[in-house]
């Protein structure tokens, strides 16, 4: 004992020793390490683009460094303000309305009798989750098209009014987009909340029934309080992503229709166009960086709030 070289205190091991001891595990982890390096961490270096006036000829390192000029442009032109406002307002509507609808439907389903009806119902409301946003594009087209859309069909033939041109009027679209977002997410969210409700002990309901409580009372005194913590946590958790827009939803419904941009352009669609259509890499990266930084700050804040409320749910 003690003749050999002095060992480090038990439990503390250098990184390289751990690498050697757990080398098989690290080997298993290698694909993931490579993946995240290539897909996420190395591209972060590209943030540098945000500070350049990127053009293809000069490439990555050759484009002139312009400091904060891209941000200045975005700020002064009002683009950043408009995009941020749209992104946040839409997400607020999605999160609050969406979660409210989902939890309500879940509560209703949990108290309804009729096993077969509930199963069929759940199958039907989950269907929208399975289709792509391109199909959603097709739906919207079916509904809102000026010449052949179902809505104009009814307006013209049944109500004998004039057809509405949805695709040139920006005012309709906040409602349309929020509706479709709720439509698509209802089934999935309902399953999540149902899982929570099922976690509430059956014995509470049994006891309440014995005491003569009506269905409405059971909901009010057992289900609602039981669901509240999860609802709040999910709400706060979703708010963390408030500057990240639902790109596919917006792009498929609105596309490149500039007439609708004032009410429907969000940070993500702007960056997409900057990348694909305009090839304005400097601006595109600047907006993306803005989104990441603000988003990260918000996640830290919301995680802090969750940690105060119920530390078990905090992410870190």
């Amino acid at each position, binding site marked *: 004992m003690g003749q050999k070289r002095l060992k480090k205190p038990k439990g503390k*091991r250098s990184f390289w020793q751990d690498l050697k001891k*757990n080398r*098989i*595990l690290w080997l298993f*982890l290698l*694909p*993931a390490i490579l993946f*995240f390096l290539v*897909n*996420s961490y190395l*591209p*972060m270096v*590209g943030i540098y683009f945000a500070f350049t006036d990127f053009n293809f000829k000069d490439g990555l390192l050759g484009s002139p460094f312009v400091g904060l000029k891209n941000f200045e442009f975005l700020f002064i032109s009002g683009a950043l303000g408009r995009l941020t406002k749209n992104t946040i307002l839409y997400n607020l509507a999605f999160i609050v309305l969406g979660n409210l609808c989902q939890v309500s*439907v879940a509560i*209703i*389903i949990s*108290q*309804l009798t*009729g096993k077969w009806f509930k199963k069929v119902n759940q*199958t*039907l409301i989950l*269907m929208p989750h*399975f289709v*792509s*946003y391109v*199909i959603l*594009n*097709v*739906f919207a087209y*079916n*509904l809102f098209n000026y010449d052949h859309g*179902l809505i104009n*069909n009814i307006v013209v*033939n049944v109500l004998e009014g004039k057809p509405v041109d949805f695709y040139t009027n920006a005012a309709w679209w906040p409602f349309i987009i929020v509706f479709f977002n709720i*439509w698509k997410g*209802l089934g*999935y969210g309902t*399953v*999540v*909340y*149902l899982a*929570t409700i099922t*976690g509430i002990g059956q014995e509470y309901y049994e006891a309440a029934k014995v005491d003569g409580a*009506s*269905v*409405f*009372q059971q909901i009010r005194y057992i289900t609602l309080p039981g669901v509240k913590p999860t609802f709040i*946590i999910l709400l706060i958790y979703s708010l963390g992503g408030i500057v990240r827009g639902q790109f596919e939803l917006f792009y498929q419904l609105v*596309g490149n229709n500039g007439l609708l941009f004032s009410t429907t352009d969000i940070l993500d669609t702007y*960056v*997409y166009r900057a*990348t*694909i259509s305009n090839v304005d*890499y400097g601006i595109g*990266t600047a907006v*993306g960086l803005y989104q*990441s930084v603000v*988003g*990260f700050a918000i996640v830290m804040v919301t995680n802090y709030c969750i940690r105060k409320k119920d530390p078990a749910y905090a992410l*870190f």
Partner: protein
Amino acid sequence: MKSQRIFNGIFYPLLILISAICVLPFLIILSGSMTDNGVILREGFSLIPKQPTLEAYRTLFQNPTSLISGYRVTIIVTAVGTSVGLFLVSLTGFVLSRKEFTYRNQVSFLIYFTTMFSGGLVPFYYMMCGVLKLKGTLTAQWMPAVLSPFLIVLMRTFISSSVPDELCDAAKIDGAGYGTTFTRVVLPLLKPALAAIGLMLALGYWNDWYRSSLFSSKSNTWSLQFYLYNMVNKANSLNELANQVNIVIRDLPTESVKMAMAMLVTGPVLLFYPFVQKYFVAGITVGAVKG
């Protein structure tokens, strides 16, 4: 119970209405795909086909080049992406579930961090096209989604809760290395998780049009969804179809063909859906409970 009857009386109709709203769009597309195109042009889309015909489907099947190409791309991307993804997600989840892996919290955090902060679309695009030179390949379509932090955490949670440590310890005592433990002990116990995660991966790949729009310049690398997108939105592809079929554009059944294509693109998903629904729900539920 009386209140139960009142409750049912109010909410049965409400749920029926909600279910109907969820299903309605599919019915409109289905009906549109089976209606005579002239009827659609004159009277618009409706719920019940006014002049039922399979003309649109016939047009698509007569010159199925785009259909076959789209299916080929999507099937390859989905098959490769799902199998590689499932294997890697399980492997990574396995490592992160091992308590003896000293750095598991740090690595988990680094993986999760990528969802909180990223370089954005431009650097990612530059990495894929400029650095890795993957533009125009099928690899670019499945690679970026093959390891998602959400699925890794889901798998890790599942392993931690469903595979008892004693089992792995026993295997180790019997002389099994990690490889054997993973394949012979852990994987067989993971069947429901593999099903749920596999389905989520497959669904994501099948419905993807975004990576096609970013990385596919030539139409033979377009995914099914992207083909549909172009068909609905761009006159050019309709012209292309018209040239293949040798029809004057005026006579091309455009609206109903778009709907038929939509049905063919999403059809497999809707067909499989009833059978796989329970695995999906199980997956979502497990994810929900842990969060």
